[in-house]
């Protein structure tokens, strides 16, 4: 596996404010890598640093082994799809797409041909003579994509490109983006705050918070085995229960719930004392022989699923997701139920 982008100990300070506290990560060539985090976590700063719009305060940025940290943006073989596309409003779609090639002194015939191919790739050949303002948001987004891909960058940087689109279009574009990455073989570095986007497209995800990388892994890794409380809460929905760890042995831990009940759960690395236990709401079923006792407080109808808001013995709020099948029996609010945890559903978090 070749490393396309390697960030080593990147620090970014704006005066007294530190936006990035020594971020290190490697992005494999020909992969779809996502920086995921809430606004202000430093993900966009990192992207802009790779593009060359922000200077790095400390650390290194390597592109296929070569340091690019001191290069001007026009000398970096990476291209960006901007959040609001930033299409040049005074140029036609075709001229927009051909701009990068023109700046690279590609001859007019070749660049027309290549720009045309790019527009075909994003299914916009028919609109090549339009001005950007005459296009819909989704079309503008495709032009921005074609424009950034046309010069065949070594890495494509995407700064929340889907956030301005409506839901249906966004969902369609996710699949298309992933396909495009596979077809072109170009490394995509995608920045988003939308965990669903990240989970559906990425080969690997770096979850960021407060200028630090919290966890790097596949979608499955970060969802199934979150390394800390932040990741568990940010990716999907989870129930967090404060527990006391009484014994740690072979990847398992014995814990005591607030109700006083004992439980054995999986734990990658744990120490004794107070910790948070994470249980995903869909890893729990209603069963007469379940180990947790709870009272149903509210039932939320969500279409394909039902969400039960319950309260455990010991007072912890606990939500449960149930498939909305014909045979699903929905307990009334106020009823006592028992919840069964799937194998490995309870995970102890290390903060």
């Amino acid at each position: 596996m070749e490393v396309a982008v390697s960030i080593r100990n990147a620090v970014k300070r704006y005066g007294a404010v530190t936006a990035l506290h020594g971020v290190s990560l490697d992005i494999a060539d020909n992969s779809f890598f996502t920086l995921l985090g809430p606004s202000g976590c430093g993900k966009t700063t990192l992207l802009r640093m790779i593009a060359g719009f922000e200077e790095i305060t400390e650390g290194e940025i390597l592109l296929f082994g070569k340091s690019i940290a001191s290069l001007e943006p026009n000398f970096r073989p990476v291209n960006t799809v901007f959040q609001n596309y930033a299409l040049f409003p005074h140029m036609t779609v075709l001229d927009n797409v051909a701009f990068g090639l023109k700046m690279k002194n590609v001859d007019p015939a070749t660049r027309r041909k290549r720009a045309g191919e790019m527009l075909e790739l994003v299914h916009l050949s028919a609109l090549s003579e339009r001005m950007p303002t005459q296009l819909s948001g989704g079309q503008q987004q495709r032009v921005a994509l074609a424009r950034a891909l046309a010069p065949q960058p070594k890495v494509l940087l995407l700064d929340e490109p889907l956030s301005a689109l409506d839901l249906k279009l966004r969902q369609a574009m996710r699949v298309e983006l992933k396909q495009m990455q596979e077809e072109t073989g170009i490394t995509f570095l995608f920045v988003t705050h939308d965990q669903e986007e990240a989970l559906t497209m990425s080969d690997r995800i770096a979850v960021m918070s407060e200028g630090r990388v919290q966890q790097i892994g596949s979608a499955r890794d970060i969802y199934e085995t979150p390394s800390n409380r932040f990741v568990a809460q940010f990716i999907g929905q989870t129930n967090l229960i404060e527990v006391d760890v009484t014994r740690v042995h072979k990847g398992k831990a014995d814990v005591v719930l607030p109700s006083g009940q004992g439980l054995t759960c999986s734990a990658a690395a744990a120490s004794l004392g107070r910790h948070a236990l994470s249980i995903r709401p869909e890893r729990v079923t209603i069963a007469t022989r379940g180990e947790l006792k709870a009272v149903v407080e509210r039932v939320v109808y969500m279409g394909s699923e039902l969400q039960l808001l319950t309260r455990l013995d010991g007072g912890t709020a606990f939500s449960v997701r149930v498939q909305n099948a014909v045979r699903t029996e929905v307990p009334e609010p106020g009823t006592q139920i028992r919840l069964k945890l799937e194998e490995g559903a309870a995970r102890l978090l290390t903060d």
Partner: protein
Amino acid sequence: MKGVRHYPGFLGITIVCLMVLYFPLMVVAVYSFNASTSITAWGGFSLRWYVDVFTGPEAERFGLATWNSITIALIAASLATIIATAAALAMIRGGRFRGWKATYGLINLPLMVPEIVVAVATLIFFSTIGLRTGYLTVLLAHITFCIPFAYLPIAARLSGIEPRYEQAARDLYATQAQAFRLILLPLLGPGLVSGWLLAFIISLDDFIITNFVKGAGMETLPTAIFGSVKQGIKPNIMAISTLMLGVSVLFVSLSYLINQRGRSSASIKE
């Protein structure tokens, strides 16, 4: 709440204001077509005073003054636009530097300083450095006082253009100079034209400063008109004033329209 239109006397006050503003201009414009030599009695419609402007005894004087006015306005507006663009780039794209606020004030201050003070100061300055008054001193003075007028529309336009267009260009392998020439300059276009037109008309119009720094023998159109009026107002002055009014209205309208068009065609701001 009722709008201002419903205040008692709104219509009357509006009419009075418009009359005060435009009635004198209308009188001048109408009487420029007067067939009689009188400036108060109407003697029928005629274009004789317009003919007089171009062929009459004062035609040569006015012709030379017009040539001076137009060449000065062209050069002054062009140079002021270039300088104002550089200033706007520094102020808006240069980031915050020490003394930013003071610089902002200094650029715009000339708009508020009484013109007579500027006129006296400019004259003293020229005589101190030993520059003989004439065409050159008028030109230099005009370039200077045109800068803030050119600056306003250019800076307004520039602050509406987000830096991401230039960034996108840089990202697509454009050098800083290419990003400026191929992206920023075309987007800035309407502001530049508007600033240039404003500067042109301000220069064309100017009397006070010009009168101080022009020296003997050199005339621009406003000073020539003033000189002529001192010997009594003749209808040819009304004709020439009406012509100038027409040019001014044309330029101001152009400036406005170009700004509007620029705003609607290129949506450069979300």
